[in-house]
């Protein structure tokens, strides 16, 4: 599903050159639920941005669903993102003046679905996250947990094969975090591949596969207990 081989990413300024990823190798199979952990500045977010085609990389190769993405144009990358990838962000990134229906509608608009198709998908995905009865509410009228559920509904509406979640429970209390995690696991159980960046060891523990990133490189962990707790601080 996602295969990165020796991916490199360097951020340059006039004075400094920062190697965010160096020989980054990762192979995520279809249906996996992968938790990516690591200390701040280790390259987790850079990995997620490259995996989500939001950033380019400087070396190596990346295949998404069997397709090499190195030389795609902006519009090809946008199309691929729209069709294959769903994003869930720590701060939800809902558009404040659009109601839930219109927020979930955003990715579908760029897919070119007709009105009836979009309506059906929006209603179905809001149903999955338990917010079908609040379609006309604005994000500000919802709790943090509910807002994250809307973000999940938005990610699911296009039926992507691959979900990228960046600290999806980072802004939620324990109870809400647990409920969002449960939702993600249900989604994964239905066949969607999920890669989740998190600082939360407990959350990572609930996930089938754990990746630890340090200094822009991957080490595969067999169990969460292997995570160096000092490194996660």
């Amino acid at each position: 599903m996602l295969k990165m081989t020796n991916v490199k990413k360097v951020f340059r300024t006039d004075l400094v050159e920062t190697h965010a990823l160096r020989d980054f190798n990762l192979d995520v199979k279809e249906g996996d639920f992968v938790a990516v952990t690591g200390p701040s500045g280790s390259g987790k977010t850079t990995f997620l941005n490259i995996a989500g085609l939001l950033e380019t990389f400087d070396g190596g190769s990346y295949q998404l669903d069997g397709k090499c993405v190195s030389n795609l144009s902006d519009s090809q990358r946008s199309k691929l993102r729209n069709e294959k990838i769903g994003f869930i962000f720590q701060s939800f990134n809902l558009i404040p003046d659009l109601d839930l229906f219109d927020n979930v509608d955003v990715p579908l608009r760029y897919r070119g679905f007709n009105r009836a198709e979009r309506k059906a998908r929006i209603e179905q995905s809001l149903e999955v996250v338990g917010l079908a009865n609040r379609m006309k509410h604005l994000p500000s009228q919802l709790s943090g947990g509910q807002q994250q559920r809307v973000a999940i509904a938005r990610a699911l509406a296009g039926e992507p094969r691959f979900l990228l979640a960046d600290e999806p429970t980072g802004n939620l209390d324990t109870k809400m975090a647990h409920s969002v995690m449960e939702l993600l696991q249900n989604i994964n159980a239905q066949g969607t591949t999920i890669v989740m960046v998190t600082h939360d060891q407990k959350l990572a523990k609930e996930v089938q596969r754990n990746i630890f990133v340090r200094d822009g490189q991957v080490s595969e962990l067999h169990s969460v207990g292997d995570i160096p707790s000092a490194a996660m601080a």
Partner: protein
Amino acid sequence: MFSYYLRLAFKSMGRNPILSALMVAAIALGIGASMTTITVNYMMSSNPIPEKSEQLFYVQVDNWSPHNPYDDETGFPPTQLTWRDANNLYNAQQGTRQTIMAKSGGVVQPDDQDVKPFEAAFRLATNEFFAMFNVPFLFGSGWDTQADKNREHVVVITKQINERVFGGDNSVGRELTIAGHTFKVIGVLDTWQPIPKFYDVENGAFEDIEDVFMPFLLKEELELPSWGNTSCWKPRESDGFHAFLNSECINFQMWVELLDANAESGYLAFLNNYVNEQKSLGRFPRPLNNKLSHVMEWMEISEVVEEDAKVMMWLSLMFLTVCLLNTIGLLLAKFSSKSSEIGLRRAVGASKKDLFYQHTVETACIGLLGGLLGLVLALLGLTGIKSLYGDFATKVANFDFTLVLLGLLLALISSIAAGLYPTWRACNIQPASQLKSQ
């Protein structure tokens, strides 16, 4: 997607109402000022008789002083004719149609005792005037060649005078005392006000048309006064009305209708022959310098669009540019406040092209709103001009459909142009840098 982008544009404007209002106001001010001056220039330079403006020619012959040209700057011949030349050229009947004319005036005394006598402007012209200039009639018609030759006391009056004197009734056949003589009304004009009043720009290109039209030769018969500009390059030989008519003073205009280029060159050759003949009689001391100008050429030569009006228009367009520069700044601020939304849209599949389209629709909406408000401001500006300059401005300070369309188009194009850079910046926002920062 257009309707979606339209909805997003209005939502976005509602999100930052003050910023949006400032942008609309900036564009409105620029459009308002520009459209006010453009309207005046447009109306001044409009073609008053588009259906035949290429076939109607103003006649100029150079009878001026051997020592000084009539116009030092351009060297153009005098702008009017002498009585003698006007009559000679008219009598030669070398054009398809021709008319000679002059402005005069006098007192109109209505029979109805309730209507007080009043002073009216006369247009003395030959019978072809009405057909050549497509003058519309409400009642009756103009006079014929015989009436010209016989100097008949017949008049055509305007709709306004007919209202004033005859209460708007069909007055054809009624009598009217004008300049102390009894005239028979043979026609009443329908509403007619060419802008500019091309047939006699010498006496005010934006004046009202005259109140009464009568045969040209009545000038001599009734010794009617000369209204408007009269210029002479040498003193008259004696005093008196006939001495004026026989002098080298110019006060008369002539138009000739010529159907094609051959007719035009033929008529110019005729003019040159005429002047050469007159030279042999001791007149026309200057080198041959005769001129035929079709309507729009004549408007240009006569500088109907005043230089001040042109300067004002360019100044107002510069003001529009300043307003647009302000709009660019405001759009940059507005779009940068939408960075996280733009990042999100990019993340979920919007291409740069999609975002460019979306933001262009938004700037176009702002531009159109600015344009609409600008047109209202332009109307206020034109009202101000009318109250400042009076009658003259009443005719040139008016909108028509073309101007409304032009105003909206100007607003649309200029706002889209102003939005190009901010929109380009918005499309190039790196989504990754925005999605963490909300």
